[in-house]
């Protein structure tokens, strides 16, 4: 196999200088354009400005509740079984108010292990766990704090309002950083 022949430059091009000047013209035009209108830059300046999130985005988990405030979960162990990352811990017990009912006394998700596959949501027969919070800034200073508890996930949003966004619109003070109402054009809905 023969080696490729090197590209022969035109005489004018081989002097480089003219070509460099042409390049400098391009960079200068970008510079001037961006100095004149820095708001036209494509950058999303992250903590303040955010990219729109898709409807199907899987964020932090929350536990939905019944009208009486208890979590819907009946500790059937479907989600820990479905979980490929083995990050859900459920300890079941009897409901003291209703001995027929089984409830979780502990329901913990280790967010360091979670891979956000959404299988737990698919597996749940009671619609007790959802990932519609749109929270993607899941962080903490210790590993222990990265384990989301039952109470945390239950109170992440008011559990009996199924639509996260509607709830956030009603409770802007409780909206997570991932959901900002004052940037309407950044979170276009539908489509």
């Amino acid at each position, binding site marked *: 196999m023969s080696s490729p022949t090197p590209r022969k430059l035109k005489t004018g091009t081989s002097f480089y200088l003219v070509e460099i000047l042409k390049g400098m013209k391009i960079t*200068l035009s*970008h*510079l001037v354009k961006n100095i004149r209108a*820095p708001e036209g*830059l494509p*950058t999303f300046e992250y903590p303040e*400005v955010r990219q729109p999130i898709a409807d199907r985005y899987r964020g932090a988990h929350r536990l939905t509740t019944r009208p009486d405030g208890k979590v819907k979960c009946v500790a059937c162990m479907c989600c820990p079984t479905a979980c490929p990352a083995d990050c859900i811990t459920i300890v079941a017990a009897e409901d003291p108010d209703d001995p027929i009912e089984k409830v979780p006394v502990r329901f913990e998700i280790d967010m360091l292990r979670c891979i956000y596959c959404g299988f737990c949501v698919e597996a749940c027969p009671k619609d007790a766990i959802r990932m519609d919070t749109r929270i993607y800034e899941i962080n903490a200073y210790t590993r222990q704090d990265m384990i989301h508890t039952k109470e945390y996930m239950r109170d992440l949003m008011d559990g009996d309002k199924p639509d996260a966004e509607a709830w956030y619109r009603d409770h802007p003070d409780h909206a997570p950083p991932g959901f900002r109402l*004052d940037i309407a054009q*950044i979170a276009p809905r539908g489509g």
Partner: protein
Amino acid sequence: MILASLGAFLTHPLTLVVIKALVVVGVVLQISPLLLWLERKGSAYMQDRNGPNRADIFGIRAAGLVHAVVDVIKLLTKEDVVPEHVYKPFWRAAPVIAVTIAFSTMIVVPWGDTLQVSDELAVPLQGAVINGGVLYILALTSLGVYGVMLAGWASNNKYSLLGGLRSSAQMVSYELAMGLSLVVMIIAFGTLDLGEIARAQAGSVFNWGVFKGAGIGFLAFLVFWIAVFAETNRMPFDLPEAEAELVAGYHTEYSSLRFVSFYVAEFGNMITASAVTATLFFGGYNFPSPPGWMGLPTIDGDWFRGNLGLVLLLVGVGGMVVFAIASQVAWGRRTGRFYQALKPGDARLREPKFWRVVWALLALAHLGLAGLGGAVAVGAVALPALLVEFGVAIIGLNILVAKIMIGCWIMVWVRWTVPRFRYDQLMDIGWKVLLPASMVLVFAMGLFEVIFYQITA
């Protein structure tokens, strides 16, 4: 008694040299962080990025200028890591050499004509008046290789060594072309003293080095400027620190203050190279004056001395207009997604207001300057002779700094425009193009001068 001895101390030649040296180093050190900002923000806007815009003092971000301060503080307070495997004496010496060379070249660059303080005392505004100033520059730039080379070698790691090796080869090869293009200018001006060279370029624009020898001077400038890029290890020729190949090249193992030394040395080299270019080819501290056409005055030191009031008036009015417009536009407009996303009460929302005040105050200051200039121009106020002298010196310094900044900006601009050359291409350009070209230019300039001398004599 004490005053007299203080005066004698202050006017002692040695004291003056120390003061002038401090001024030079101060100027270089002050411009360096500014260049860092220019490089970061300029490159960002050229590449459609935002660039530094986060650090703020009470919400004032100054388009990222605060980052220059923050960067300096961060780099100075960082841990100074001394790796186990380096050869310590040379490793420690290398940044010192680099930064020393970068600063000391600047000392022969004149930043003004002689300052006539009194009848007895005339201070040449040049750090050190050396007869062979051009040779001094050449000697020091060759020494500059040692900083990079020693750093690369003493770091005792293959990438750094390769960086140092490339750098020394590159600097040695480009030194020849640079030296020969300087020879062209030496022939044209007939002196090695940079002060003399700058003085010879006073008066008309066409006394400038670039216009010498019917275009030969311009070609020499091109050769010199390309060689300067290689000497300062700037972008098309920044193979010593080609980050894609060599991590960071010769300064991979350095941190904290030692790293800053290399950084400052790079900016110092840029400033020095621009200053030398300005002095040799673009009239140094001389104003680009019309060459006496259509009855326009030739603007030189004497013209400034006679028309200081007019100059002050023009600067005052110009500055006032610029800053008055700026105070209407302000800095940091509140348009765009970012400002809409800021919560009310965010300190950064106050920024345009702050700049509006700053620009308005600057416009006011320039109004005062214009008033003073007008008063001097119509003869209502007579400035003391010493103040006039200082005024002329400051004008010259400002012109030189403006030329330096233009040169530095072109370096930044080119850096973010062109890709890096391959190593063999670099050597080809150095040895096969620039060196023969500069040799031809030397002969051409010699011939031109001889013929010119024959005609005029």
